[in-house]
């Protein structure tokens, strides 16, 4: 497994992209996710309106894989219903675990399919899944 399939231009660009790296105005779901063993951290902010994710963005720091994954996820989640987003999270986690490999099935993940190679790099799996686990936690917590 060549690491060139991980550090693709798409992924390194997303990891340095600033578009999704910001606060979300009127965020009503927020969660701070951390990988204690490596120090990757991100705060995901979502604004959910009428069951739909109107905006998603994050702040934090970490490796290229975690940051690219967070950026791609923000793009994918924006405009989705919460039910759709929940399904996408399951799909992404299934892809990284290696449980879902069917290309047609994964198509829904759009650019995040680029992270499929991480499923073959056990040491980096936690980096790729951090944003999605953070999404799952954020959606379960309504800001007060």
């Amino acid at each position, binding site marked *: 497994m060549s*690491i060139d399939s991980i*550090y*693709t231009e798409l992924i390194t660009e997303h990891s340095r992209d600033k578009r999704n790296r910001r606060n979300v105005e009127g965020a009503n779901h927020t969660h701070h996710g951390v990988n204690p063993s*490596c*120090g990757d951290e991100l705060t995901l902010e979502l604004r959910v309106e009428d069951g739909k994710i109107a905006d998603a963005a994050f702040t934090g*720091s970490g490796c290229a*894989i975690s940051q690219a994954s967070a950026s791609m996820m923000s793009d994918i989640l924006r405009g989705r219903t919460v039910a759709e987003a929940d399904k996408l999270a399951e799909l992404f986690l299934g892809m990284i675990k290696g449980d879902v490999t069917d290309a047609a099935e994964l198509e829904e993940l759009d650019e995040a399919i680029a992270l499929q190679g991480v499923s073959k790099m056990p040491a980096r799996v936690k*980096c790729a899944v951090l944003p999605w686990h953070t999404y799952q936690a954020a959606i379960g917590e309504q800001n007060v």
Partner: protein
Amino acid sequence: MPHKIADDFPVLNQTVNGNRLVYLDSGATSMRPVAVLQAIDDFYKKEGANPHRGLYDLAQRSTEAYDGSRAVVAKFIGADYEETIFTRNASESLNMIAYCYAPLVLTKGSNIVIPISEHHSNLVPWQVLCKSHGAELRYLYVDKSTGAIPDSEIAAKIDKNTKIVAFAHVSNVLGVMFPLEKLVAAAKAVGAITVADVAQSVPHMKLDLHALDVDFAAFSGHKMYGPMGIGVLYGKRKLLEEMPPFLYGGDMIEDVREQETDFLPPPSKFEAGTQNGGGAVGIAAAVNYIESIGWDAIEKHEKALMTRLIAGLNALPNVTVIGNNDPDARRYGVAAFNIDGVHPHDAATILNDYGIAIRAGKHCAHPLLSYLDVEFKACCRASLGIYNTEEDIEKLLATIPEVRRRMNFVD
């Protein structure tokens, strides 16, 4: 070096991702020479009985092997036999002091002083203890450009309410040696005890704990070419006599009655239950191995490699040395650096593709990485052992520029 040291370490003779393994993570754990592996094997093949218990030949030989190992280690660190206690590792040794000795001296309103650069092993036990005792944990802030502890910090932080001053002898991130004599003198002046974490210094220099005059010291066998799971707690005899046992059980008692127990004196007092016999024999074999090479040869070799490594890192574009970047400033075993714009975990993953093993991240020193002004609040760390060669250093230096290229930076 007298011969190719790496040949003594079978694990180093392998390829990783099609490249010769270049192991630069001895600060995390050093590899073991055949002599150590053989000694452990022999102990279990030829003796293997429970030390201090049986009356038959095998048990007697096991006892001699175990006690003999302690004698070898005690002499190696300039300590007495009774002051040298086998533990699992430096973390356990430090926890024993925090759990058993510290409560004897810590009071509400008193304080413990440690450098900001401490490994979590020498930080979290004190933090938890301070919380539970209403005491204050104070930090000595290192100079960011040299990694040194300024005298003014020592003067400002250690006061009459200081009960414990704990510090690494050599920082596991910055590689600098801390001014142990000054810290000991400042602690003594206010009646505080000193705890030295010598895990990062014991593989790189001759230690004489009596001469250094610290009250307690801790280290691991696995960072000095010994096996994992054996470490040492050193304590001055008087303190070990005052300190209550950490674990109770077999082999640490003199007499047990229905309602009372008399404990054995140190070291047995602190070694309840069957101990890591193979580990003890292994760490003693590691001591013998180090001494067979000799400190002069080790220090000369490691100093030359480190000077070249720091000079080489300085010369690379987009690379920043963390801590003191003067190649001639003495660093022991570890060099920390960052590659601009590249998270250390990505750098380590890419270097691994070339067979190079380095450590990356926060190095069990989160408060230090938060304090230093480094990108990503994390760094790369290359650390040396006696088996490393100039070739290893050149391979690392030649490969680092590949990291930004693989990350699609256009330089």
